[in-house]
């Protein structure tokens, strides 16, 4: 007997979770009132800790408070010396350059192509492999109001309430209105969504939804969408250049964005790309480890797009809010911080403390649940503490098998089942230990309905488009589950259509990196020491000892 995957000191608590399970199956925890919500967030959500943020010293958002880790990369010197780059010698001359090979990049590339730009005149530049992005890791699903009892306006209210009414409403309208169109596009491409025998989507709740509108492909929803979009990009022979992140945007002398400098991570050489339209789809910032949180994000999520965009004048919004996913794995150590999809709660699993008691309605919006877990662990001391000092609470996954029948977890949560089984934990029988983890960049580059990047005056920066997680406004100060896979498709599509439209009539003049020199001067004037460089491209995880002995002798 016992629980081979868990240390013995957890066993008593697991038995309590089992003992209360039958009673809890009938128990619905009271939903939080708006007043309680405000109090809870203020006291326990990491966003409300003043020491985690500072005001930016320069740039379009001068004076705005952002997480210290974001300020560190925005107030940093360029990686390249603009004088080293020969802009006359162009390596790639294209109509549309897409920076980033995730979901929004792939969607943008396809819709650029559908809009009449030939495949050979499109270039996707990406840091790692094409498709190595947070999109692939999105498990739970994608929202779209397509059932008769649901509607885009109902979806609108969920999105804007979840976002604390800080969203840009014009963008929310597009998100909810174009959602069904995206699902149809996917259906035609052959995405294998979960359906019943009549072709109806199997749709469930996500945190903060008032209707069941979460479409899923098991718990590999993002992977399934990403690989189908990738397959289509490759079928259409759109060019992709991998292991070559952009390190700086290029402008022309008329002040429009006109391409980028790429850096080949393997040969250390740069490439000059000239483009009539440039689309930033670089994603978010999980790998900055805001407030030292672990993250669910992929290895390249270092917010390079924010850095490059900021230097050409893009305005950022809602950067003061960060999404911590309530349920990151807290045990075993090897997977701490990795995502435990919200779908686990969507299918009925409750969150319970060391005594097997509930403390929050499991499908409140993410920031609320995250704050409640932190309060339960640190305010009420009702969490489990692991040998490394990591705290966590139980997510009672076996409830799913009782509610929906045996085999449900293996069928609909195959990834989760597999991930824990590797470490001898059977989530069909044993609960999972969870704690909040850094998940999503709520804010980002401000865009308009045409995905044009805006400056501090709200004017479009000519030639520059942005879509997906790198942008802000769609989700306000808190994104709901299932709206990011939606965002990258809806706005990726718009990015592609509008970049194509722009490229057809744009004329690019003489290329310049003058803005980078201007930025360097401003940094110096603001008294910023030249010790930090950005974009950082990849996080630094080398062992302390190894790193302290690392020297570059340029052999």
């Amino acid at each position: 007997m016992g629980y081979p995957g868990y240390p013995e000191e957890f066993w008593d608590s697991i038995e309590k979770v089992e003992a209360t399970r039958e009673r809890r199956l009938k128990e619905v925890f009271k939903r939080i009132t708006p007043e309680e919500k405000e109090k809870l967030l203020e006291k326990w959500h990491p966003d409300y800790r003043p020491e985690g943020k500072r005001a930016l010293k320069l740039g379009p958002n001068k004076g705005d408070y952002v997480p210290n880790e974001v300020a560190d990369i925005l107030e940093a010197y360029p990686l390249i010396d603009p004088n080293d780059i020969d802009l006359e010698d162009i390596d790639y001359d294209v109509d549309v350059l897409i920076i980033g090979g995730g979901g929004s990049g792939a969607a943008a590339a396809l819709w650029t192509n559908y809009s009449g730009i030939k495949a050979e005149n499109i270039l996707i530049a990406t840091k790692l492999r094409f498709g190595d992005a947070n999109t692939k890791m999105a498990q739970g699903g994608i929202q779209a109001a397509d059932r008769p009892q649901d509607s885009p306006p109902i979806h609108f209210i969920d999105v804007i309430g979840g976002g604390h009414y800080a969203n840009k409403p014009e963008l929310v309208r597009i998100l909810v209105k174009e959602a069904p169109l995206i699902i149809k596009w996917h259906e035609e491409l052959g995405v294998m969504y979960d359906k019943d025998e009549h072709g109806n989507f199997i749709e469930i709740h996500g945190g903060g939804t008032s209707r069941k509108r979460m479409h899923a492909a098991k718990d590999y929803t993002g992977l399934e969408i990403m690989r189908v979009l990738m397959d289509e990009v490759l079928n259409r022979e759109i060019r992709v250049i991998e292991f070559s992140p952009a390190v700086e945007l290029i402008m022309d002398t008329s002040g429009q964005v006109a391409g980028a400098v790429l850096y080949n991570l393997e040969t250390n050489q740069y490439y000059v790309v000239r483009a009539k339209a440039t689309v930033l789809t670089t994603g978010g910032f999980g790998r900055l480890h805001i407030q030292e949180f672990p993250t669910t994000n992929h290895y390249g999520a270092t917010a390079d797009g924010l850095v490059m965009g900021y230097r050409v004048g893009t305005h950022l919004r809602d950067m003061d809010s960060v999404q911590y996913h309530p349920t990151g794995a807290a045990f075993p150590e090897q997977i701490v911080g990795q995502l435990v999809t919200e779908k686990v709660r969507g299918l009925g699993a409750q969150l319970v403390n060391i005594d097997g008691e509930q403390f929050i309605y499991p499908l409140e919006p993410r920031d609320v649940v995250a704050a409640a877990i932190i309060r339960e662990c640190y305010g009420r001391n009702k969490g489990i503490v692991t040998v490394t000092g990591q705290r966590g609470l139980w997510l009672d996954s076996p409830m799913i098998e009782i509610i929906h029948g045996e085999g449900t977890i293996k069928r609909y949560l195959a990834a989760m089942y597999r991930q824990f089984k590797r470490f001898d934990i059977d989530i069909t029988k044993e609960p999972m230990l969870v704690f909040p983890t850094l998940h999503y960049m709520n804010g980002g580059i401000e865009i308009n309905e045409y995905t044009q990047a805006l400056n501090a005056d709200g004017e479009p920066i000519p030639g520059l488009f942005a879509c997906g997680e790198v942008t802000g406004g769609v989700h306000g100060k808190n994104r709901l589950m299932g709206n990011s896979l939606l965002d990258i498709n809806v706005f990726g599509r718009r990015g592609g259509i509008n970049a194509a439209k722009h490229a057809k009539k744009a004329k690019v003049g003489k290329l310049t990196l003058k803005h980078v020199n201007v930025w360097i001067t401003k940094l110096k004037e603001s008294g910023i020491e030249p010790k930090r460089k950005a974009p950082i491209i990849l996080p630094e995880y080398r062992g302390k000892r190894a790193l302290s002995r690392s020297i570059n002798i340029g052999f």
Partner: protein
Amino acid sequence: MTAQKTVKKLKVKMVSIYIMGKEYKVPEGLTIHKAMEYAGYKLVRGVGCRAGFCGACATVYRFKDDYRLYTGLACQTTVKDGMYLVILPFVPAKKPGYDIEKLKADFSSIVKLFPEVTRCVQCNTCTKVCPQEIQVMDAIQMILRGDIKSAAELSFDCIACGICSLRCPAEIIHYNLFQLVRRLNGKYLTPKSQHLVQRLKEIEEGKFDKELEKLVKMGPEKWKELYAQRVIE
């Protein structure tokens, strides 16, 4: 408040691993990725999501005096003493292009694009090496029988790490083949949603435009009211 700050000093046992034959001492219990970083590697190739979803970090390993070749994902596999390992970040493979609109969901469409599928000798090596524990060979056999739907479902959890294709004596490119099979299934062998068609028609007719326009203009106070009045399904 965060986990890292409360970590206690623990006594950690060190193990020897051999990265492409070169010995490094690393703490027990780390994943292969973290162990390589501990040793001083800055990973560029063979790393992606670090959570078992992207297939970038297919790894093969052996132990001294053990003839068997083991496989796993570097982000999900824990190092063991005496492990000789190499990450194989890239598998050269053909990916035939096609227009999904012009294909039929049948065996002949598939075999034209992936003729090598018929060379399967049922050795089952693909299944044995799959880090996702997919019944790979069974899926290939289903394709050969023309059972596209079953093959699509059985191969669904594939993360395209490519280990099966490296080991296959018939030189089948399983992950590209399965991608085609899944798209054929999703597009042609699964009934279309009727609700969706109805909703798209309503959107096209502008059914929600007025209400959305009103919502956009409403502002936070009214939104708050509406949010508080929501009826949850």
